[in-house]
């Protein structure tokens, strides 16, 4: 049925809306480098009186040295504690009290700060980000204070949660390289050991303009915004480039396996992690389509076969995220009461072998394509989403325009590509398996 947008077709019960697969607008952007090395990506979008600013620093937990795990994230907290012209916590206070939102987040690969504000507060966002890049206030009090908050964050997210330690155990076992084997949140002991001198040295080395990318998206004028960025950030001095991270990971020769007791969990759980290449590699799109076929929604193979038909599990997921270094294709699931981890593992393995050997249906490939298209449309509704994507793609891949090519890259992936990557990467010799089992019950109520 192909009738125009406005002309509704009354024939039968088909009410046509829109033309089939109308092209979605591409994101227009400018990519500029200041003299001090700060890279600035700007994209105008005047659909709402709002803008977002994202500052990506090229430092994550992968840059941490031994004995200082969790430091990049602890440092992120320090960035809200004031600078030369901004008081303790004034940054978040001003953002929220002017109707905005903001936060910071640290991963293995980067540390990111962001604000979304009404469009008339452009100077506010730029000033706050520039002042802390230029002159962070590093004091012992601030460090002690945020050490507490971060240790509490660790308790909330890891130590007081069922399966909390499982997440750490997988990466520790799967990676040989120190950069990726420890968690972003770090260990309690290392957090306690961090000193003010560590904070100052880290700031100087990593929080330099030449080690950052800014993304600005929304109701802004590119030329004016660039001039303001020059005004606020232009005088911040460049620093020597930080040392490159050694991301080399020796090839894994055989399966690694661990059983973990968990006093807080009530059901067992299996986690598998298969080694895959960095997401900058040519196989990344096919690996993404593979994840969709295995676990994207309820039509996916894991759900339909293992959850619905065999009734072995409450849910089985498969996932691979962006990773600048060697990545992991993660599979995890919880057996239903009365079923065993071995039953579940056998069923997961069977689905993986079936993916390698048997044909993939056309609709499964079609599903991956439309889901890439819808994900793109969904993501560009938000200035923050676009700003994150543009700046992260610039930092990780040196391709700020990557957001515009995702749909067509996924459309090129064939069933044969998916089978090839399944055969190449989903092999037992290069996987890590962690089995989490509830610890025998403590006295009732713990009394």
């Amino acid at each position: 049925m192909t009738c125009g947008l406005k002309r509704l077709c009354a024939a039968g019960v088909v009410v046509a809306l829109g033309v089939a697969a109308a092209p979605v607008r591409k994101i227009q952007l400018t990519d500029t480098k200041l003299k001090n090395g700060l890279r600035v990506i700007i994209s105008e979008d005047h659909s709402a009186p709002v803008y977002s600013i994202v500052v990506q620093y090229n430092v994550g937990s992968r840059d941490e040295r031994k004995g200082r795990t969790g430091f990049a994230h602890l440092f992120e907290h320090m960035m809200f504690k004031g600078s030369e012209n901004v008081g303790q916590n004034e940054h978040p206070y001003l953002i929220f009290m002017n109707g905005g939102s903001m936060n910071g987040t640290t991963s293995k690969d980067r540390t990111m700060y962001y604000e979304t504000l009404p469009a008339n507060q452009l100077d506010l966002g730029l000033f706050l980000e520039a002042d802390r890049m230029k002159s962070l206030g590093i004091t012992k009090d601030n460090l002690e204070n945020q050490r507490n908050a971060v240790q509490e964050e660790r308790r909330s997210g890891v130590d007081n949660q069922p399966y909390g330690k499982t997440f750490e155990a997988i990466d520790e076992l799967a990676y040989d390289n120190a950069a990726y084997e420890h968690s972003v949140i770090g260990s309690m002991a290392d957090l306690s050991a961090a000193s003010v001198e560590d904070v100052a040295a880290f700031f100087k080395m990593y929080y330099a303009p030449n080690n950052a990318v800014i993304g600005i998206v929304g109701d802004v004028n590119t030329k004016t915004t660039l001039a303001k960025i020059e005004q606020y950030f232009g005088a911040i001095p460049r620093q020597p480039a930080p040392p490159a991270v050694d991301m080399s990971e020796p090839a894994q020769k055989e399966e690694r396996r661990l059983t973990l007791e968990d006093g807080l969990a009530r059901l067992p759980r299996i986690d598998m992690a298969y080694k895959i290449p960095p997401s900058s590699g040519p196989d990344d799109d096919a690996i993404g389509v593979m994840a969709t076929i295995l676990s994207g929604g309820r039509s996916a193979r894991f759900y339909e076969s293992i959850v619905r038909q065999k009734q072995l599990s409450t849910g089985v997921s498969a996932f691979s995220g962006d990773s600048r270094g060697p990545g992991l294709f993660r599979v995890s699931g919880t057996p239903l009461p009365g079923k065993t981890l071995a039953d579940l593992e056998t069923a997961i393995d069977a689905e993986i072998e079936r993916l390698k050997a048997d044909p993939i249906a056309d609709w499964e490939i079609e599903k991956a394509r439309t889901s890439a298209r819808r994900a793109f449309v969904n993501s560009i509704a938000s200035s923050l989403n676009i700003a994150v994507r543009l700046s992260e793609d610039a930092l990780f891949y040196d391709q700020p325009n990557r957001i515009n090519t995702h749909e067509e890259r996924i459309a090129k992936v064939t069933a044969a590509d998916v089978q090839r990557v399944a055969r190449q990467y989903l092999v037992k010799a290069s996987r890590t398996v962690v089995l989490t089992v509830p610890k025998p019950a403590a006295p009732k109520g713990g009394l």
Partner: protein
Amino acid sequence: MSNRTILAATVAIATGAMSSSAPTLAQGPPPGGAPQPSTTQMVLKGKAPVSNEVLKVKLPRPQEADLANGLHLIVLEDRRLPQITFQIIIPGAGGYFDPADKIGLASYTAQLMREGTRTRTSPQISETLETMSASLNVATGLAGTSASISGGSLTENFDKLMDLTADVLLNPAFAPAEWDRLRTRTKAGLVQSRANPGFLAAERFNRAVFGAHPAGRVSPSAANLDAITPEALMEFHKTRYAPDHAAIAFAGDLSLAEARKLVEAKLSGWKKAGAPKGSVMEPLAVGAPRVFLVARPGSVQTTLSVGTQSMIRTDPDYTALTVVNRVLGGTMGRLFRHLREEKGYTYGVGSFFSATQYRGSWQASTSVRTEVTEPALTDLLAEIAELREKPIPAAEFADVKRAIVGSFALALESPQQVLGYYIDNWQYGLPADYWDTYPARVMEITPAQAQAAAQKYWAPGRLQIVAVGDATKITDILKKKGDLEVYDADGNPLK
């Protein structure tokens, strides 16, 4: 001289700027001596350039129409992107109306509608939806008064999505085998949720505040699940999923005329049934203050909730409580500044309230390391008391009102969010210009009104305290705060 004053000055100007004025930048410390914020770890130097204008935002209004079968149509046309989302709200089909021995009936009726129709199996529905990357969900809360069918897709697939929606709404099969599957998975989920401290706190808190009222329900029991039959599910659907009092709302790439044609074409089989809207009762007034401990062996934190009943959505105090709650437990509010930033007791702390057709709840909550349970709880209660006992300093008060009004601009990025405001209007019978006049109403709230709301809703005689954690370490501490009842993580009372 105070660095703090700039915000007061800014807001004083902003209040005027609600109606006019061009943006100007305020820079440099202003004169004056406004009160300092009530907690340390926050220093306002006042040097950052803030635009004095609060961006005047007028939310786009949806178009509305009433259809012959009783259905109310709401359309927020927004052509920025080629996608459409929708929501059907069906009053009378929510968990509120579950029989006492079949708690969960409404929820599982909703969930099972998606698990097969007379002509489509569950996997066929999933495959059709996901091949076009569309979503379709049917859901209701255990205490909700209405059920909701919602979804969305790219414009090019929306016609097909509506076909599927109509089938799920009108012809669900309620196959016994699918109910068995869903029930088995749900039971496993019940076991898992008991490992989660947040779940345990919510369960005990809702029971403490609402007693046997439906609002006190957080999850069904295994016995409830066993009592629910495919026949009961089918009957609930047959009698409750009527269009008589329902609404269908769209946001995105279509007009009112297109939406009307679509609904009339796809949902022509959804006939007026003379169904009652379902009357709603208020919960009994909250009882004397008590302290509840849920013993969770192995906990390294204590999860705390302090709270009570709130109000109905149309209560005249709604705006005043919104403002004073934001002062206490909003982003960068007093609880955050004091318990996290000043004392370092916690990673996250906040306060929240709900207001629906019947009285909702208000609570302040946090998780703190076990060792600081006592000072954290004492400080939390003290912050609540301070808002009852002392007026909010003018600068802090003005900042918070500015924050609420200022954040409206951000909603304009999301047609779904704007539509949500107008669905609230319809659900609670708020005036048509409610959101146009909301910023002015927020700005008109006085410190005295805010304090009065704190005194009324956070009176010490109404506050219930719930703690989830290591009973061996915190029982004696909690005894100091009032009459203590102790439960295990399975919900059984302990001596």
